[in-house]
């Protein structure tokens, strides 16, 4: 018998209901607690999942259509980039250090976020939330893929791109970003949503993606600009989901407020530490700079972040605990970390360099209170050592923070001449931290953080036992090729030679 055709196409509202809310059902063989065993242990109380609002009301059919369209555009441009020798159109090959750090530390985070959203989409009992998380899970894996594809073209021509997944797993500076995501992944579904959906996507994303994408545009990297655009419309949805999640928790029960506030304190600070890498990129790695890290912080941190926390004040939320210490660090952090990246560059899968006189003048102008006073003398001394043929390599390796895993390069909030030394004892063992805030995060859940895999101590355990050469093999770092100073590197040599061939008639 023929099926009777429907009267007409479904309306948007009806389609949304059928394709999201209508997918949920009440179980009869198992209790709700058995099906959603992770929904309660974090202490967040939800009384009515139906109150969850999805501001985008996006359904799967529409989602596939939009994303498919974006993919077609993206790959058309990536092809054009490859065919037009896009790898020669960048300002110069120093720019690629920023890209290498991004590929090694941040793109794998997109993949982790994919796994996380796939998981919490299963763990949340509300069907609206499940669908939203499912879409974000697909977005995140798409972002990881498009970023890897966009950068793979550079891998044909330049060093340091070839082993990003080994770098992600094994090298040291990437563990700052990796531990951020691992921490979120091993938390419950609500904390994960706050960590990634709110802190990362909402509070910090502007400071990561906007400067990075503008940096790509300023430095002629069309491939990266393209994935930025391709991801941008997803980010708007992710930010809304993150904010919706936080408001939902706060509206459901007053007992949720102190839990949410503690997570905001924690995840703001963890994110701020990841931004340390971004600050070096903005102030030191872009041959053509967009704005200083300080200027970016003024706009995206102080202004936007400040407005957000004023808005959330009606729920009883205050600015994150680390907010004021973060403010004090802004004029110092990029310089402190970059001095570290330079002196440990024998162990980085990207190049560093001593800033030129012109670069240093720019830094003085952007950091009038701090650069000439604290940082120029150190760079000048490093320059002298390099000129004398004894460039400084710090083989002492670095103490790492047990929580954020950053080398402890940052100073006391009120004394930029003194490193911040913080330590505590748990079950008879000592643990060290870069700041009061990282110590507080540890103290709330010590059983979690004592398990942290810290790359520097690990180097002195089996099977490497302190053998730097064996370590380089293990992290897939080619000594003398991927690492060290940009000056004299193969990347520098090749870029200059190819560019000369493309723009003149070398004999």
């Amino acid at each position: 018998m023929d099926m009777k055709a429907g009267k007409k196409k479904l309306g948007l509202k009806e389609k949304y209901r059928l394709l999201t809310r209508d997918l949920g059902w009440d179980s009869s063989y198992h209790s709700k607690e058995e099906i959603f065993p992770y929904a309660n242990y974090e202490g967040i109380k939800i009384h009515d999942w139906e109150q969850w609002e999805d501001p985008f009301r996006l359904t799967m059919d529409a989602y596939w259509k939009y994303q498919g369209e974006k993919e077609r555009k993206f790959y058309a441009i990536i092809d054009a980039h490859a065919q037009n020798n896009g790898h020669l159109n960048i300002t110069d090959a120093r720019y690629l250090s920023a890209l290498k750090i991004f590929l090694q530390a941040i793109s794998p985070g997109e993949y982790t976020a994919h796994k996380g959203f796939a998981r919490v989409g299963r763990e949340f009992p509300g069907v609206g939330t499940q669908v939203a998380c499912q879409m974000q899970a697909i977005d995140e894996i798409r972002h990881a893929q498009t970023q890897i594809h966009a950068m793979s073209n550079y891998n044909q021509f330049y060093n340091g791109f070839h082993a990003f997944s080994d770098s992600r797993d094994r090298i040291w500076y990437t563990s700052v970003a990796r531990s951020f995501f691992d921490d979120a992944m091993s938390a419950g579904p609500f904390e994960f949503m706050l960590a990634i959906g709110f802190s990362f996507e909402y509070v910090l994303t502007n400071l990561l993606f906007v400067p990075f994408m503008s940096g790509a545009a300023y430095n002629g990297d069309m491939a990266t600009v393209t994935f930025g655009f391709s991801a941008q419309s997803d980010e708007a949805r992710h930010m809304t989901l993150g904010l919706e999640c936080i408001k939902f928790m706060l509206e459901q029960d007053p007992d949720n407020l102190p839990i949410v506030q503690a997570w905001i304190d924690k995840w703001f600070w963890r994110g701020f530490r990841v931004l340390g890498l971004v600050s070096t990129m903005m102030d030191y790695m872009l041959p053509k700079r967009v704005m200083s890290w300080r200027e970016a912080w003024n706009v995206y941190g102080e202004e936007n972040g400040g407005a957000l926390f004023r808005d959330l004040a009606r729920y009883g939320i205050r600015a994150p605990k680390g907010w004021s210490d973060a403010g004090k660090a802004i004029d110092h952090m990029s310089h402190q970390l970059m001095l570290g990246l330079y002196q440990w560059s024998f162990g980085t899968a990207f190049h560093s360099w001593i800033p030129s006189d012109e670069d240093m003048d720019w830094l003085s102008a952007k950091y009038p209170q701090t650069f000439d006073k604290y940082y120029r003398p150190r760079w000048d001394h490093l320059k002298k050592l390099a000129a004398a043929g004894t460039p400084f390599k710090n083989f002492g390796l670095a103490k790492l923070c047990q929580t954020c895993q950053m080398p402890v390069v940052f100073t006391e909030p009120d004394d930029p001449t003194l490193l911040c030394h913080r330590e505590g004892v748990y079950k008879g063992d000592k643990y060290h931290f870069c700041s009061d805030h990282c110590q507080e995060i540890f103290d709330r859940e010590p059983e979690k953080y004592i398990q942290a895999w810290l790359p520097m101590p690990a180097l002195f355990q089996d099977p490497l036992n302190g053998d730097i050469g064996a370590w380089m093999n293990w992290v897939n770092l080619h000594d003398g090729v991927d690492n060290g100073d940009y000056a004299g590197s193969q990347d520098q040599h090749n870029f200059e030679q190819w560019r000369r061939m493309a723009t003149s008639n070398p004999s």
Partner: protein
Amino acid sequence: MAVSAIKEYVGVARDSLEKFNGKQLVYFSWDHHLLFAAPFLLCVEPQMTVQQLIDGALVPLLQADPDAASLDWSQVEWLKSNQPWRPELQRSLADNGIGHKDQIRLRTAGLNSLQSAA
């Protein structure tokens, strides 16, 4: 509970002493000498004397700083776990109570060559 978990959960410390095959970690920093971007991580034998640590590890590491030549080890102020403390240089790290992952700091009043005069 010391971790948010669905049931009793006990972690395993990743960097405990027995993982270092008879050695231990010591962290060392020279206050106000920020040419060295972070405290040094040293993996050493607990039977080594403090003098051996100075001669074998610290002197070569600190050499890059212009103050290194004027550093008089008999006059320095020491801190352990951020508290004033005095090691006996000819005795071992273990005898001096320098445990696994202890942080030693050095203070040298008057030496601050890489800070701007301004």
